[in-house]
């Protein structure tokens, strides 16, 4: 079913009786060419691109709960490609370009809104680091502007310019960055994949891999055994748990990342602002809620809930940057479980088991990567070769000393 304003008008007059499910609810078939484990953003995107761009058939996505219930539905909706290192920047810029055409591609309005992502700096070294980063972005075909404090004040006059512990000196702006209605990304990819024949199977938890002679030939699930020629895993947050079923130990820790939404407020913030002197970033949703977050809680966790120290830390950052938000109230807070990798960058690679592919380690930045992650993973699964923008995301980079460490923090995930 194709969506349009015209269609809405027709349905409105018919009492909305004609709308069909956005995706089907098929029973699992005995086997598939390709199984994607994980009905989150990345898994659904992978299925969509496999079917639409790589001409693959007989594809299933297996989801243990309801689709979009993981991090694609629990993030702060930001998209951007403002990375420092080439191993990352090319990939995220590819992702941003895919975002720019997403809605027409999947026929679903995910409200991709390029309202600008601004990272503030508060010292000379920070400014210089942003200059290096902005230049790296431009070298990779992205857009970047280095603003001084006056230019920032013009954009956001209510920020704390006059009584700040760490005065704002300027910012690195990526005008093409922005936000996307996160749930709609999962639904949109599901809708498009489903239309191309992909079976999206909810409430189907994978309980084991069937591996024979070094080759993965299927998966055990709560809905029975399902055979497959190739199996791709895209379950970030639970990667260690799932890959342990294939006997693998990963360079990952699971951590909880909290996010917050305020009560609805009349428009205040147009784009995305990231504080450079505290753990705080914020945007405002189309419904009016301030959507904000900060640092991860800092200890390994599989609980989708966080604790007070980080909530306080985030709000302190918020108040010190935007002293007018004191009376905005936090309406909801939640925690998402993220795969924190050992260098802060993701992994998209084959495994030592033939036919088993892995996609994970997205840290707190998986949402913006969704389209490129799906595309690159589909490319890898189809061709057995990494996509040109994802060549650095290899599993063996740690053993070889080829880390992609944006923050320079080393092998301690909670510092990335």
């Amino acid at each position, binding site marked *: 079913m194709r*969506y*349009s*304003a015209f*269609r*809405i008008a027709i349905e409105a007059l018919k009492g*909305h009786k004609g*709308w069909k*499910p956005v*995706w*089907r*609810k098929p029973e699992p078939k005995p086997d598939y060419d390709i199984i994607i484990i994980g009905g989150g953003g990345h898994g659904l995107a992978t299925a969509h691109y496999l079917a639409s761009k790589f001409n693959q058939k007989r594809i299933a996505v297996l989801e243990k709960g*309801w689709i979009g*219930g993981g991090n694609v*539905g629990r993030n702060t909706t930001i998209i951007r490609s403002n990375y420092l290192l080439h191993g990352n920047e*090319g990939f995220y810029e590819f992702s941003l370009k895919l975002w720019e*055409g997403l809605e027409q591609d999947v026929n679903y309005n*995910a409200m991709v*809104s*390029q309202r600008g992502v601004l990272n503030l700096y508060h*010292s000379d*070294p920070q400014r*210089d*680091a942003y200059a290096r980063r902005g*230049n790296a972005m*431009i*070298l990779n075909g992205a857009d970047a502007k280095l603003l001084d404090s006056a230019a920032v004040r013009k954009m956001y006059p*209510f920020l*704390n310019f006059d*009584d*700040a*512990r760490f005065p704002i000196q300027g910012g690195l702006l990526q005008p093409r960055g922005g936000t996307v209605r996160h749930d709609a990304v999962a639904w949109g990819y599901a809708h498009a994949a489903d239309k191309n024949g992909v079976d999206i199977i*909810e409430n189907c938890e994978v309980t084991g891999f069937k591996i024979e002679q070094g080759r993965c030939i299927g998966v055990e699930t709560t809905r029975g055994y399902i055979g497959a020629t190739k199996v791709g895993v895209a379950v970030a947050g639970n990667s260690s748990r799932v890959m342990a079923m294939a006997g693998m130990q990963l360079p990952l820790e699971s951590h909880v990342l909290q996010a917050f939404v*305020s*009560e*609805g*407020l*009349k428009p205040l913030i147009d784009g995305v602002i990231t504080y450079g*002197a505290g753990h705080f970033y914020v945007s405002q949703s*189309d419904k009016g809620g301030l959507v904000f977050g900060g640092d991860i809680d800092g200890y390994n966790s599989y609980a989708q809930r966080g604790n*007070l120290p980080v909530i*306080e830390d*985030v*709000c*302190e950052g*918020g*108040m010190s940057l935007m002293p*007018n*938000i004191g*009376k*905005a109230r*936090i*309406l*909801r807070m939640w925690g998402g479980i993220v795969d924190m990798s050992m260098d802060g960058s993701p992994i998209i690679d084959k495994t030592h088991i033939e036919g088993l592919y892995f996609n994970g380690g997205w840290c707190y930045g998986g949402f913006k990567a969704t389209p490129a992650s799906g595309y690159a993973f589909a490319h890898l699964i189809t061709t057995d070769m990494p996509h040109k923008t994802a060549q650095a995301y290899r599993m063996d*980079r740690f*053993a*070889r*000393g080829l*880390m992609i460490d944006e923050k*320079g923090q*080393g092998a301690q995930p909670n510092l990335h």
Partner: protein
Amino acid sequence: MSLIDINNPLNFTFDGKAHSGFEGDTLASALLRSGVRIVGRSFKYHRPRGIMGAGAEEPNALVEIHEGNVCEPNRRATTIKLFEGLTAKSQNHMGSVNFDFLAINDILHPFLAAGFYYKTFMWPKAFWEKLYEPIIRCAAGLGKLALTPDPDSYDKGFLHCEFLIIGAGPSGLLTALNLGRAGKQVILVDEDFHMGGRILSENYEINSDGGIKWVTEALNELENLPTVRLLLRTTIYGVFDHGIYGGLETRTDKIGAPGPRQILWKINAKHAVLAAGATERPIAFANNDRPGVMLASAVRSYKNRFGIDLKNTALLTNNDNGMLTEANHIIDIRNGHHITDVNGRKGVTSVTLNTGEKLKADYVAISGGWNPNVHLTCHKRARPIWNDTLSCFVPDGNTLSSDMSVIGAAKGTFSTHGAFRDANKVSEKLGCKTIPLPKTEDRPIDVKAFWHVKGTKRAWVDFQNDVTAKDIILAHQEGFSSVEHVKRYTTLGMATDQGKTSNVVGLAVLAEATNQTIPQTGTTIFRPPYTPVPIGAFAGSHRGQHFKQIRLTPSHKYASENNATFVETGYWKRAQWFSRAGEQGWRDSVDREVIMTRKSVGICDVTTLGKIDVQGRDAGKFLNKVYVNTFSTLKVGKCRYGLMLREDGIAMDDGTTARLSDTHFVMTTTTAKAGPVFKHLEFARQCLYPNMDVHLISTTDQWAQFSIAGPNARKLLQKIVDPDFDISNEAFPYMACGELTVCGGTRARLFRLSFSGELAYEISVPARYGDALIREMMSQGEEFDAIMYGTEALGVMRIEKGHAAGNELNGTTTATALGLGGFVSKKKDCIGKVLSRREGLISDDSMTMVGFLPVKQGDKLTNGAHFISKGETAKALNDQGYMSSVAWSPTLETYIGLGFLKNGKNRKDEVLSAVDFVRHNHVDVKVVSPHFVDPKGERLRV
């Protein structure tokens, strides 16, 4: 007997109109008493909205209070304690609340069904951001937030108790009495400004007297029990791991009141008793959102507690509890009656029944049964379970951890007698004697599940967000059948009331649509906060200048007196430069400081460098483990430069370490890494080498330390150091250190180190003498034109000398890349050594630090530029490295730079383009040695 003090009238305004109420009123009760019906507009359709509830569950009556920079949006009128002079405004309308232009949305509602926006606004592509979204955003949100800083103050506090009792209704009060009399440490909290809970709002007797009398006596006794603490107007908004309860106390809503507006309490409780009561729920039927449609319990609250008779009321109930409401018409669902429509666009005028009968009414009181307030049990990970008899979710004793008990209505015990009985039971379980049960009503609730009157018109489930039963059914039709999908697709339960009145009804409507039971359909899980909490309260006093601590150096006062400009270096404020009369800008000052230092002598406060005392028989052996080079062989009275790696082989920090005795080393770290290095050393000491005799303590704040650099450094020091000590070049050569006295006996340490490349020392005295020492040195230095220099000049001189600093030790560089590969001892293992030899870190193509000069004299270099080989296009594939430090060298009269270049050590004299797009500065640069000044190091040894 109401709780209103009619002798104490209070004036307030609503939408600019003057009204009055009484002490004891909420804004909502005062508005009702004044006959105000429309108090706001709904989110999506901008329908008129009246007051629906009497407490935290209120979805409709959201107002802005105060104006200007103290304006507070989205306050529930039902929870604002009325005070003299309150100004309140309705919100979310264009025009007035009575004539809202955006009510056009209500007429267009067929086109605005759930999720309509996901299906349109996609063509033409550019229109979403240019046209559609701006219109949507314009209409978004509810109240307005001030654009100026919040002037109010927020405080925080920490409480500890054995028992935290949440809710001071009948069960909470009785439990507090039992535990308090037994001498237990008890904290009793209630979100209301009067304790008593439902007793205040009902009119049943307790011990043959008015319920309020019993409450008053109970409170009198509790206030006098020494181990009991009462916290009024305090909401437990969240439960966190290991018995930490978040409480928000509102002290005042008045402007300009002294002290904090709110206090955020962190309460550590060994056990919590949840006595949070229950929330009545509405029933979905056509136009049930009209102003005048209220919860039956709220109608009783307004009557009994606030003394307001809402005349001409029709009651719709499915249970006995609702029957307590005085009404002109009773429509009992259990007898097969229900309402099919509500008439009156701006307020109820009549209701239509399923019998076709039309009844005149100004108010409709609905009781659809009660939902126990199980929220905080969910915060503790318990999943509520469905109770068919009570027709509600109740806490599940099996999944709730043993440090929380639930009693009273929160548990599904809906009679007052039952609440008292629960209280006594839990008190006994907690090891206390109990008082005899007060005599009171014990009515069964006798509820018949009933959720939704089916029909063609819209029936509201979520009043604030305008989610109707039809929306939920449409969501299901489109495949959004998981509760979580329904919530996300329709926005059910996402409003500021967090679904307190809508979640269970919505679930029931979904269950009907899917032909399943409610438990088959799902549960509703609640996450913190229980009610919304201001960001300001979480931040407390940590804002503005108090966001983070400020650390001051011992010479801070002296520097302030001498025109220093300060710079934030972590938490430290350091002097960046010292301006003098006639200097046109910072560059003049910095150039002068560099030139004067290189010419004569300059002094810089380097106290901020981390200092760590490393003592013990195994101290040398220990340092061998953490530094790449060897320290066990360092002679007493000598210093050595040390480089430390992380275990992954990347440079972590550097500094010098001096040996004061066989068992005593003094390590210095960079300013930024003082904390992390100390932690790293403690890790090595306790977790890797726990049998070594080595002891660590930070002495950063203990010693005031100054660097004295320049050809006259020794001459100046000889005037400071007491004459017993020989600091001539022979007696005290480069890299010497020692303990001595200065200025007539003051204990000091002297290190002969140089970061600038000049003859230089670092001298330290106990910090109590820091201020005096800098004054003394500057005064003694007058004859040499001694100057103080700041961090900028320090930076210039270290770049001139080619020393790597924070910009170079950026967490991705190896010893080799920094040109320090030679320091790595081949004879011993150290942390990071093995992994530093991985192929990716030692390949020919890996980055090396080199120096850069502009090809064209006078060209400006910029930090953060990338290097592209001449003739190649500027794109990622051709990137050769980046500039990490840049300075104008007054010594060489040119810009100089340090940076990292692929295979840098083999590219000397190559010319590259340094491209800086973001600063629009592209220049040609030549690769040179990073040591610009005195490469042989002769000056520092004189």
